[in-house]
């Protein structure tokens, strides 16, 4: 056996990084890929069942409103704007986390939390503005599925932001949690971005049908 051995001493390497350096960032990205696929399938189901109706969206079943089967536009649009605003605030939180600007993180997270609580409330009204129940017809089933799936993401990201806020307010800001905040931000962007095509599909698409 040789007396000497080449070594690669990595003791001097850092312990934390951001973005593509971190497994957490990749894991998060892959989970979002999975969730994107669920929305792709839901979207495909939406267009698939649309072939089965002569009038799209199908006329409402309640007698008083048969003339206008289109989903309402007010609440959903307000919600879309709220989502975009909160994502913009999140960009700021993201950059503050990289700079370790604790005060900015605190303020930003609080704003995002409040906006998301607003979004969740607006989503509750959105279920009413689509004027169809999940068990009325296949159109209603698909719509409810998409809205609930997205609502679930809104709730999960709010819960995640909540626990990170609690942490940020109570403990010193360590690199690992700064990374967590930047990963949360990626999730946040995704929740907003994925909603844009779905919004167009659900609310605007039928208006040009």
């Amino acid at each position: 056996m040789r007396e000497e051995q080449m070594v690669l001493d990595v003791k001097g390497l850092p312990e934390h990084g951001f973005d593509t350096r971190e497994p957490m960032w990749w894991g998060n990205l892959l989970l979002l890929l999975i969730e994107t696929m669920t929305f792709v399938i839901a979207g495909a189901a939406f267009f698939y069942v649309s072939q089965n109706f002569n009038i799209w969206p199908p006329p409402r079943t309640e007698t008083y409103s048969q003339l206008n089967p289109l989903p309402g536009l007010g609440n959903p649009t307000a919600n879309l704007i709220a989502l975009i605003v909160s994502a913009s605030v999140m960009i700021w939180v993201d950059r503050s986390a990289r700079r370790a600007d604790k005060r900015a993180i605190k303020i930003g997270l609080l704003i995002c939390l409040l906006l998301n609580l607003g979004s969740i409330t607006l989503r509750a009204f959105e279920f009413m503005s689509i004027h169809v129940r999940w068990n009325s017809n296949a159109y209603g089933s698909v719509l409810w599925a998409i809205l609930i799936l997205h609502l679930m993401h809104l709730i999960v990201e709010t819960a995640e932001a909540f626990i990170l806020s609690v942490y940020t307010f109570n403990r010193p800001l360590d690199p690992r949690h700064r990374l967590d905040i930047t990963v949360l931000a990626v999730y946040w962007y995704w929740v907003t971005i994925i909603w844009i095509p779905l919004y167009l599909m659900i609310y605007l698409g039928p208006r040009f049908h």
Partner: protein
Amino acid sequence: MSKTKEENVGVVREMRPRSEIDESSERQELERTWRAIPGLWGWLSNTNHKDIAMRYIVTAFIFFLLGGLEAALMRLQLSKPENTLLGPDLYNQIFTTHGTTMMFLFAVPILEGIGLYFVPMMVGTRNVSFPRLNAFGYYCYLLGGLFLYAGFLLNVGPDTGWFSYVPLAGPEFSPGKRVDIWAQMITFTEISALVGAVVIITTIFKQRVPGMSLNRLPLFVWSELVTSFMIIFAMPAVMMGSGMLAMDRLVSTHFFNPAEGGDAILYQHIFWFFGHPEVYIIFIPATGFVSTIIATFTRRETFGYLALVLSLIAVGFIGFGLWVHHMFATPLPQLGQSFFTGASMMIAIPNGVQIFCWLATLWGGKVNLKTPLLFVLGFVFIFVLGGLSGIVLASVPTDLQVHDTYFVVAHFHYVLIGGAVFPLFGALYYWFPKWTGRMMSEHLGKLNFWLLFAGFNLTFFPMHQLGLRGMPRRVYTYLPEMNWASFNLVATIGAGVMFLSVLTFLINVWVSRRSGAVAGANPWNAATLEWATESPAPAYNFIHPPAVNGRYPLWTRTAETPVVTGLSAERREVLLTSVVDALPQQRHELHGHSIWPLVTSFAVGVTLIFGIFTPWAYPVGSALMLLALYGWFWPKEGPKQYGTKEEQKLFFKHQTELSLRGQDPI
């Protein structure tokens, strides 16, 4: 002694005397840091990738045995016309449970399990990227499997086939809870497969040893990488499909109800958008076994590395363009059918390339005909036959003729048993020494192989003819005048031979574990890194992860090939490297033991199991999951710092600047 700084900040590359790379004290430290906590609590909170992977493998093999026994029962029932061993209802439950078990509880978990065992070792790291997520995946899988069999044993097993087509599986024609059990079992196992895929991809991307750039990745690791991506794109479809089915049954949605604008064909589309890639999710890891075993037992590098990798990726892509060939008997547009015929035939090209690369490797190598290689040769023979009947089925007119007959049963058993189970047995013989430290018996191994090979062909070859004679799938009996009896009897005898073969395997495992020859670190003189450590490997895999200088590192390494030092032995630290070139980037502390994955999987279990009775299980269960996740992620203590504060600050500042400017290299 030369001392050169690498271009990466913080890495020193130098020759050191072996005495200075002190192993004994470091070994003790690593043992203490990585060892499993003894006792039940330790078992339940274990997150070591080898332990979790071994649980996957053993559990999946038990399900394989159960599925095999179900198959044997079906063969006994069909051995003669008008047999009365099984009634129609029990027969329906048995073939459904057999198919469901083999696809969801055996094939995917065992192949992913072997990946979870060997991918970290082959890329030279100590544990997977997300050890706790990995454990969570296993418990979800276990719960799903137990749930299915609980239903089966209570005589409420699913009875609508492994793909549970609507309208048969819908609320109108399948009242009761049987189909719901199937649908929730799907969700359990797909959660498990998906988190396994995330864990494998991230580990491959971030934790390879220095030197293992993507173009030096072992072929088995490539196959697990491609499979994992396929899982990520395919499995959400079946979760959505089975979820929609469950909702149709639970809260009267109309996804698949034609009376209210839903569509039964939509179910088939969604199911097969998953179902066809699923075949390749099962087959591609098996090709990884084949490439690995052939290289080792021909003592040469596999012919056509690049062609093999590109074929894997091509199969991964084309595999998503084939699903409609399962639906040729539905009223689809002709143009669509032609497209899917074309795609189905096209996938023969990359698969053919792989077969030819393997043959070329065998042709030029010194063939060492041990049991693992024998199984691989059996695979080549059987899989090619299965591929040929696949070309018959890819063409619309012949497909219509034999649709839903035993011809199809013969075809998919040829591709699945030939394509996955034969390589799998080869892999079990190949890696048994690494798992247990002992060799398996060659005599029993060869007996095992020949019994399986003969039994398999005896069972399934006559089914081609049965199908051509019009025997439909999923009939529990048939009349004597159909002239199907003799071939069915031959098939049943073949199943008996296969039973003996698996029995031989179990005896071999039992005997070899106790008294097999001691294997040593690298009994086959193989080239990949899992053989660079003792057998069985310690909890931390390597004392010093060995860097690599080629695709077959153990065949090409020299004293100039470095080993990695400087990782902390006091905590569970691994080296992170860049995704493409595997340049060292940072040290990273992994999480240790945790009971929360188990708790979280119980929360998932409560949700899904009660979810077949009441929709309120979903909000309540989600709240439980959220609580469990809070427990999971709540930090127990601040992270320990390693190195001086100033150094840490400096590096972190450097990286922060890079990331703010968006210049961090991948």
